[in-house]
């Protein structure tokens, strides 16, 4: 498949061929748009609540906020039918392997929203011995929604950001999303319980501690 916008014509390409390429490109672009349109308007979350934020997630699906308007009220209880993992609450170390397992069980294309302080960084509980300091140590997160808990509107806002992100995706080329690149796996190693921490405590391929940049 070619790139969506036709590459600058090399001299040996004739006009007819270029037309052909462009048509191809238009077709591809339309396909891409349709594909992205379909995915972005039918994001089914996994029915998976962890803690306080789960209540606001439920509230977002309730009448006042009605996540159904975005086509996302189909909270599927089985990860096999879900597109979106909303990590809604504190991920404890005891729970982390299950969350990664759930993520692995979801079919591609799949997305992850870290909802609330706990899911992003451990939040107020980050100093706890059993609290994972951010789910992005084990699975890739698409959108972070800060708040403790974020308002239901904030979740909707995050969902809209995710939709925008999906709409901007290319179905070919180097910046294609993970699920369209054959070399990228949607399966992530599940940590194991160790004597005093998870083993490993993070997925080194996915998360590197950033450098501390701090003026004293």
């Amino acid at each position: 498949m070619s790139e969506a916008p036709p590459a600058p014509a090399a001299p040996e390409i004739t006009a007819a061929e270029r037309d052909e390429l462009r048509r191809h490109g238009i077709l591809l672009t339309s396909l891409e748009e349709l594909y992205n349109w379909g995915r972005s308007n039918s994001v089914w979350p996994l029915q998976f609540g962890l803690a306080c934020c789960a209540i606001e997630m439920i509230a977002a699906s309730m009448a006042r906020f009605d996540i159904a308007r975005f086509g996302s009220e189909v909270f599927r209880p089985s990860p096999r039918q879900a597109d979106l993992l909303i990590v809604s609450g504190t991920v404890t170390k005891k729970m982390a392997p299950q969350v990664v397992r759930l993520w692995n069980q979801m079919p591609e294309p799949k997305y992850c929203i870290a909802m609330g302080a706990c899911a992003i960084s451990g939040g107020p509980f980050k100093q706890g011995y059993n609290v994972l300091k951010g789910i992005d140590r084990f699975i890739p997160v698409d959108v972070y929604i800060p708040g403790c808990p974020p308002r239901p509107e904030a979740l909707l806002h995050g969902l809209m950001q995710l939709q925008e992100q999906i709409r901007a995706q290319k179905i070919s080329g180097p910046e294609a999303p993970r699920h369209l690149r054959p070399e990228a796996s949607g399966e992530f190693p599940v940590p194991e319980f160790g004597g005093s921490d998870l083993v490993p405590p993070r997925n080194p391929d996915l998360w590197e501690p950033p450098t501390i940049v701090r003026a004293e």
Partner: protein
Amino acid sequence: MSAHPANALPLLERLPVALRDACTSWLPESWRWLANSLLSIVAIFVVFATLFALLTLAERKILGRVQNRPGPNRAPLPFLGIRTYGLAQPLADGIKMLTKEDIVPRGADRVLHFLAPVALLAFSILTFAVIPYGRALLPVELDAAVLYFFAAGAATELAIFMAGWASRNKYSLLAAMRALAQLISYELPLLLSIVPVVLVAGSLSTSEIVEQQGTWLFGVFPQWHVFTPWGFAGFLIFFVAALAESNRSPFDLPEAESELIAGHLTEYSGFKYALFFMAEYFGMCALSGMGVTLFLGGWQAPIPALAFIPSYGWFAAKLLALLFVFMWIRATFPRLRIDQLTRLAWKFLVPLALVNLFTAAFWVLSSGWAGPLAFARWLVAGTLVLGPFLVLGRRLSAGLGPRTYRYA
């Protein structure tokens, strides 16, 4: 298609058949029947697939409205970006489902895992063959159409069992067992509830049954079967059993979300899951269609004055009304437990259906009664229906009831 004298019908009524004939008229006579059949199949599939798409949307919208919210309404039309009250939602869901990764769990029976949704869909489509959609619209004229319908319909539960078994998941397995229990329990009342219709109509042919309901008392009241005591009872039993057969709330035990995750669907993703979903709606449509045919006068208009509206219009209206009730019930009721489900079938619906058989027999016997005797006929038949209902209902709900509470 049925052997109606096509030319006697008004144009609107003939239109679908005429269109089909126009499409195939250039073919040699010997090929034409095949082409006609294929066209009918395609037409039915297209119509019901569209209906399925709209029904999923309608269900989400109705659930939404019942729950004081709008339901899906934002998905814009592709390329245009115009919002159309969520009409594009099923399309988006379809595209997503089609492009979703298909996962077969390690250790699952790959063949069965694949076959289950296909078989389910195939069986549910088969049932569409014998439903008269209009005066001139009956895909296959069968003498034993009713028997055929229920034979094909019963096979769907087998597919659910296949799915549950092949998934190698404990929840799916539990769902499979539930599905079988449900199948065995509800096939009986379902069949028994339609025997009175067959008894009264004296035919197993669906078109014949509909034809017979095409009279009006005093030219106003339609003589549909549901407007007789036995027909009313039969319809209710049929409807309850149909809810159970199509695994709809409050009988959605195999899929019971709050207990078994997604039951037999737990391990299905992507397009296979969509097929299951489709088959569920097809089953619901088929059973509603049969209910309309047997009890609600099929494609007959409710009053003769409205007969100018084409018969398939009436059929569609009645079908949609029944489907609405399916959704309305889903929006309201909690789910039964498996033992209560079977008890409801064996201790309540089956005896009622049997008694209803006698009521129908009495109705046939007393068909000549007129004048005050006609009143007596209604009274007797009504008692025959209501009495057992009250007695059995009381026994069924023994020990249950509202309670009073004391205060400290």
